[in-house]
């Protein structure tokens, strides 16, 4: 009845959103803030979201558990952090030599990716929406020149996830540490190299003050796809219009985060090269070739780890093969046409 509808329309919800980033963190941290503002405005205050930075309500790596058990209704994070709970989740964040942001969005929204991702999280009572991308990252900051594969041997580097596993098979000693320790460790020589995100965030972290060489491309993270996760029960309690508002707002920040990175990375790279005289280097071809080979192994092992992983791998790699073929004569051909000299940075 209309009376019921009215009552429902007046019901308000105040949700908590936990994130894996410091509050207001540049780029990725702006996503959840924008989401909260949009939802508040679109719902005329019927759904308000309080955003918590990492550690404010729960630690950054507890986001998934907090959403899963309803401590917070919403979370913003990246799925590769949940490797210990569901190894399959790694496919949806960053795959070495895998799809870039544009291609990932295509696979997730139109290639069956989202359905598989939701299937991974289903046992945890969590719904997922893709909520931002970094774009192709940088290869990382090095205090040693990398001219051949041999130069990697014994190198101490911070690189998480699948990329880190590939590096460790190339002889690199992979070290794990939280973001806050990266700068000091690199400066003191406790590590020889680190990857972080891209020029925008790397400049902000001051990594140029601690390393000599800035290598590209970020083969290990052709993008990171961020996620908004929702507690299933909480979501079910929302009236359908608020559900639609939430979904739409997440779709907005998905584009918005990538746009911000694309816009800011340009300026930041210019600042790094021109003002801070950072030496930009391309990762040697033989290193890339070796990394590609090991990546295939690491991903194949992941694909064999469960039936679901196999299905995700098949969907992912089929889509990638097709899109690579098409992009060879579209994006790639166009890039080549636009810039026939290719890489002119050196």
């Amino acid at each position, binding site marked *: 009845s209309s009376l019921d509808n009215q009552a429902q329309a007046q019901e308000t919800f105040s949700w908590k959103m936990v994130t894996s980033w410091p509050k207001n963190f540049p780029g990725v941290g702006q996503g959840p803030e924008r989401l909260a503002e949009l939802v508040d405005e679109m719902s005329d205050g019927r759904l308000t979201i309080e955003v918590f930075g990492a550690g404010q309500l729960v630690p950054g790596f507890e986001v998934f558990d907090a959403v899963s058990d309803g401590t917070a209704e919403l979370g913003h994070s990246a799925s590769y952090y949940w490797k210990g*709970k569901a190894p399959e989740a790694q496919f949806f964040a960053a795959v070495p030599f895998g799809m870039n942001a544009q291609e990932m969005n295509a696979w997730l929204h139109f290639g069956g990716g989202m359905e598989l991702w939701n299937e991974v999280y289903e046992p945890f009572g969590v719904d997922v929406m893709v909520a931002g991308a970094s774009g192709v990252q940088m290869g990382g900051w090095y205090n040693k020149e990398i001219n051949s594969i041999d130069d990697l041997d014994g190198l*101490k580097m911070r690189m998480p*996830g699948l990329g*880190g596993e590939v590096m*460790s098979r190339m002889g690199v*000693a*992979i070290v794990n540490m939280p973001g806050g320790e990266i700068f000091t460790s690199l400066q003191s020589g406790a590590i020889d190299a680190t990857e972080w995100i891209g020029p925008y965030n790397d400049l902000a972290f001051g990594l140029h003050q601690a390393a000599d060489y800035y290598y590209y491309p970020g083969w290990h993270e052709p993008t990171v796809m961020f996620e908004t996760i929702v507690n299933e029960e909480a979501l079910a309690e929302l009236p359908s219009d608020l559900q639609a508002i939430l979904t739409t707002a997440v779709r907005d920040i998905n584009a918005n985060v990538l746009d911000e990175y694309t816009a800011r990375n340009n300026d930041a790279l210019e600042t790094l090269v021109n003002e801070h005289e950072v030496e930009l280097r391309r990762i040697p071809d033989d290193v890339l070739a070796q990394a590609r080979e090991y990546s295939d192994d690491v991903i194949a092992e992941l694909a064999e780890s469960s039936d679901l992983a196999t299905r995700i791998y098949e969907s992912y790699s089929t889509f990638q093969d097709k899109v690579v073929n098409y992009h060879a004569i579209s994006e790639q051909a166009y890039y080549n046409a636009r810039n026939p000299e290719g890489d002119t940075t050196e």
Partner: protein
Amino acid sequence: MSQTSQLPPLVRALDSASEWFGRTLAWLIILMMLIQFAIVLLRYVFSVNSVFMQELVMYMHAAVFMLGAAYTLRHDGHVRVDIFYRKMAPRRQALINLCGIVFLLMPVMIFIIASSLGYVSNSWRILESSPDYGGIPAVFLLKTLIPLFALFMIIQGAIELVRNAYILTGRIVPPSADTEHLEERV
């Protein structure tokens, strides 16, 4: 809080078990130090890094303070604001301990168990593994330390409850402060 002999047999047995467990647990400290030292050697001298060893140190560290809490309670090692407490007669101290255990310690520990059961059982359900390559595939065990910590505290809390009740009712004559300290040092 270390007088045991006059306590009822069951309590006495639990108390001895707690003491034995605490003493055994303490050995983790030196193991942890040796492994962390080995990590430093490996990293700086041999450029080798072991995620497994790093996590092992973390597991041991967590085990020491989560499971050692009850042992420290047994030895009255949790810091007090003792401006007034110190000057009180042993019976009054026993009364404060009695009330503190019933109204402060026990509710907190029960709450920790109640609020962590879902959290921990979710981890067991999927046998949660390390978030890092090469890590220890037993995060579910690590998380189990949370309710286990509270359970140990409840058991030790109950023992201390009996001990303090005995002091309060005069069934145990508490040692004078001085001799107690001498005992500890000898």
